[in-house]
């Protein structure tokens, strides 16, 4: 492995507080070191360029069963949009739901090094790990979906937090998962009967617990265990006009809950793809932005974070464990619909969707995403995602960055809409002059997500001793381009990407791959005979797979990198 010195770049590293200073970065044995420690390494001239840590994606659907159903059911997603293979890489296919190879390479070209797969159905964990094996370059963690799990619905209904924690620890171990994900808490279980929970107080059929009790209980469980990441919630009532009230109700559940972990995480609740949850109005006719009402609350409460889920105005493939939402969406657009209900655990739906810029609602959704990020006061708690591929493919992050950094870019687009006047009336984007800085972009795309997930000692920073994951972008902060397109171009393809000290991308071309890791959380808890008995009982009676075959075999884990948590006290 070669050593490197990256010389004269403008460094943006929020976790160490570096705001665009010229600084040399050393790479030695795959780690970041003081530049003076590198003797005889290769020199990379980064003058006039921007240097950041490798990107960290806190919420992306990049691997797993529903992603794969999306690939399978949409051959048209491959037409005309796939890159031609270059060099000694694997073939890259697909646009909104790219193949695993395309996913890994595309993230690397954008300077990313860590992805958090946002929804792993526990029963399908071996599938997720198979896809992780086939996704090159980037390290991946996957969150098991737990908001509708029968064990947890029962424990939380009875307020048996210790049992819930012991089961959660067992499940993370069995699936080699990373953290607790709740999707439409209670609503997805209701979908087992074709029903839903659209407020946080709707009782879940049979289980007779409310989404509020689930979210609160899971948050407490998370802090009882002291997991690296906080509870990661996709709240109820996604995508409906007027849903900002449900969102606020959900966020308020975090009041009074304090973070408990040794990973430097400050928040207890992460609301994912907040854009889909910040809608005002009562119908699609009077649909309008609720971003200000939501952001007033978020800005005032520092124990919550969110990622945006920017709408990118593309044809894409929506997919979520929110089964009833996908059914509802399918009834709106009447395109093809796939669904997979997963026994005792969760569900998933997949529907292709066209965010058409000639449709008012789509444009308002686009504006709401940008408003959230522009209204945010602390970008360490506001993360850049497109809820890939739901609001748009992750390959559009550079375009989102362009819109965030350039008022001209977003105004040009806003005024080009067929219904621009109506869109302007329903949103406040036009009145917003703010343009985010490169430092804020670094907070949104690496430092913030890494801190929120409790992995900032390994990812998202250029601190000495961390893994040498580095992105060098061809953009000069002292001479920011007048043409916003050049911003998008710079973030689309790095000048160089380093992964664990290996140069994997040069001038936007993937030139090497490197061993990549599966990050998971290994939680030790006290023995719990009740939970063990419950696990044996449910597997004996209700699962269609044997307990011993449910747990991911070690041989199916790809380069595991465990985060140890001791919760035995």
């Amino acid at each position, binding site marked *: 492995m070669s050593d490197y010195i990256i010389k004269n770049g403008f460094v943006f590293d929020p976790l160490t507080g570096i705001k665009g200073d010229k600084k040399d970065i050393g790479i030695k044995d795959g780690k970041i070191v003081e530049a003076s420690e590198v003797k005889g390494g290769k020199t990379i001239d980064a003058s006039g360029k921007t240097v950041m840590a490798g990107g960290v994606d806190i919420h992306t659907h990049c691997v797993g069963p529903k992603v794969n159903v999306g690939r399978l059911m949409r051959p048209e997603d491959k037409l005309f949009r796939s890159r031609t293979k270059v060099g000694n890489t694997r073939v890259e296919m697909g646009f909104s739901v790219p193949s695993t190879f395309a996913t890994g390479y595309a993230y690397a070209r954008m300077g990313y090094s860590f992805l958090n797969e946002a929804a792993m159905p526990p029963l399908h964990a071996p599938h997720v790990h198979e896809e992780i094996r086939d996704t090159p370059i980037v390290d991946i963690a996957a969150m098991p979906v737990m908001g509708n799990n029968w064990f947890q619905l029962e424990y939380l209904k009875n307020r048996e937090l210790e049992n819930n924690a012991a089961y959660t620890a067992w499940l993370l171990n069995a699936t080699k998962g990373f953290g607790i994900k709740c999707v439409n808490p209670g609503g997805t279980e209701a979908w087992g009967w074709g029903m839903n929970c659209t407020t946080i107080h709707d009782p879940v059929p049979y289980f007779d617990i409310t989404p509020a009790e689930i979210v609160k209980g899971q948050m407490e469980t998370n802090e009882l265990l002291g997991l690296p990441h906080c509870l990661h919630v996709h709240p109820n009532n996604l995508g409906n006009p007027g849903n900002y009230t449900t969102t606020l109700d959900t966020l308020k559940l975090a009041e009074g809950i304090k973070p408990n972990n040794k990973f430097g995480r400050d928040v207890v609740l992460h609301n994912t793809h907040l854009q889909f949850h910040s809608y005002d109005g009562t119908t699609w006719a009077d649909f309008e932005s609720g971003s200000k009402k939501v952001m007033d609350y978020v800005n005032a409460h520092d124990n919550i974070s969110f990622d945006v889920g920017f709408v990118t105005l593309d044809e894409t493939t929506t997919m979520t464990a929110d089964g009833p939402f996908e059914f509802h969406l399918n009834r709106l657009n009447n395109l*093809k*619909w*796939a*669904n997979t209900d997963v*026994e005792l655990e969760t569900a998933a739906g997949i529907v292709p969707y066209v965010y058409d810029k000639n449709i008012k609602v789509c444009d308002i959704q686009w504006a709401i995403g940008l408003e959230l990020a522009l209204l945010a006061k602390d970008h360490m708690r506001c993360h850049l995602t497109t809820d890939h591929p739901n609001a748009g493919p992750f390959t559009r992050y550079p375009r989102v960055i362009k819109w965030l950094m350039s008022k001209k870019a977003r105004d040009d687009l806003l005024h080009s809409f067929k219904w621009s006047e109506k869109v302007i009336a329903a949103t406040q984007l036009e009145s917003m002059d703010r343009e985010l800085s490169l430092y804020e972009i670094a907070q949104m795309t690496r430092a913030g997500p890494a801190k929120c997930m409790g992995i900032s000692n390994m990812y998202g920073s250029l601190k000495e001793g961390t893994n040498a994951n580095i992105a060098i972008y061809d953009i000069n902060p002292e001479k920011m381009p007048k043409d916003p397109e050049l911003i998008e171009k710079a973030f689309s393809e790095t000048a160089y990407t380093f992964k664990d000290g290996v140069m994997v991308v040069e001038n936007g071309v993937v030139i090497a791959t490197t061993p990549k890791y599966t990050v998971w959380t290994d939680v030790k808890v006290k023995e719990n005979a009740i939970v063990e008995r419950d696990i044996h009982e449910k597997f004996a009676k*209700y699962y269609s797979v044997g307990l011993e075959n449910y747990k991911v075999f070690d041989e199916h884990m790809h380069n595991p990198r465990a985060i140890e948590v001791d919760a035995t006290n």
Partner: protein
Amino acid sequence: MPKVIKNVGCPYCGACCDDVEVTVSDDGKRVLEVKNVCAIGTQIFMHGGDHDGRIKLPRMRQPDGTMKDVSFKEAIDFTAKTLLKAKKPLMYGFGSTNCEGHAAAARVMERAGGCLDNCASICHGSSFLAIFDNGYPSCTLGEVKNRADVIVYWGSNPAHAHPRHMSRYAIFPRGFFTGKGHKSRTVIVIDPRFTDTGRVADYYLQVRQGHDYELFDAFRMVCHGHADDIPDVVANIPKETILEVAEVMKNARFCNFFYGMGLCHSDGRNHNIDIAISLTRDLNEFTKCTIMAMRGHYNITGPGAVWSWQFGFPYCLDLTKKTMVHMNPGETSSVDLAMRDEIDAFINIGTDAGAHFPIPAVQHLKKHPFITIDPSRNMASEISDLHVPVKICGVDDGGIVYRMDNVPIQYRKVVDAPAGVPSDEEFLDAVYERMVELEGEGFI
């Protein structure tokens, strides 16, 4: 002491029973006894391990037509050279191997620039066509077990083809919300033949052969409020029966359609599946309804999954461009390629194209190098230029397989394969390495 291994997955059908108990001999080379397996699964386990009946070396066809044992090294070299020399090689099969093998095969064929296809091509491929157009509202088998109170088997006969399907998942098990087992469920069987599955039905509808589409259409008319317009008899079924059964479906708490080749390979093919999916969608206006293909082999779902994540297409892949992939069933499907004599080297793996393909297709394929990779003798192996024996997944090799509901099941190795016999993955990886080596040496 013989050893008992529990929680073993069965390498027979798409039901992927994973509760098999296998007793193996002291030396770990023979299966002595199996429990919780159907008659067919039992035979597969008994064939595994190291015994006299097992083929242990590759067999190469000689100029005089006889087969001669050769080393694995020779077999690897022959396969690699065959692939490199061919303009449009085809590798087909994969129903009976693990996903590790599917991934290795994909890497080989991407490098070779050939076509890659699986048994779905002649089986549930028509289902894929319908899924491409209409989606796939489905669920896992445990959902059926725990919730479904109306079960429809349409054009499928699990009593013979998936022997434990009804008892493990669909009709007899006592699930969480189906505590009375069989008594909690209404079973509807729709089939032109009165099968053994039909015997357990509460409603048996003897649809007129080749007229399934019309019957689906009639059910859809009921869902859409046009019951009055249904003719007196549709596809052999009286109107009153149609109305009664439609009410059963609409009033279900959870209804699931299991369909098989009787639907996807009778007149209408993908259109039958398309309308079945549409009926499933319609019924979700009234209740919860899902649909599931009765996939045949234990891991025929696997290649569709692996190649979807690697290339975005489940079957009929054309990688001849080497830089991108096409799929166009009819053009890039194995039988069609073979019938047009476009294939100049054929590898049959984990299936028996010799038995399953039309004779003219096999005759065309046989004009060119023909290789079989399979643990056993079959019709394809006996006409091959090279037959490479490999481990039997689920018996002497582990690995991941996908059940008919796309749930991954981790299979176990229970006995040792004969020394030196590779798994599909090991053999294909060696072929890949040899291809790289040959290309480096300037071969072709």
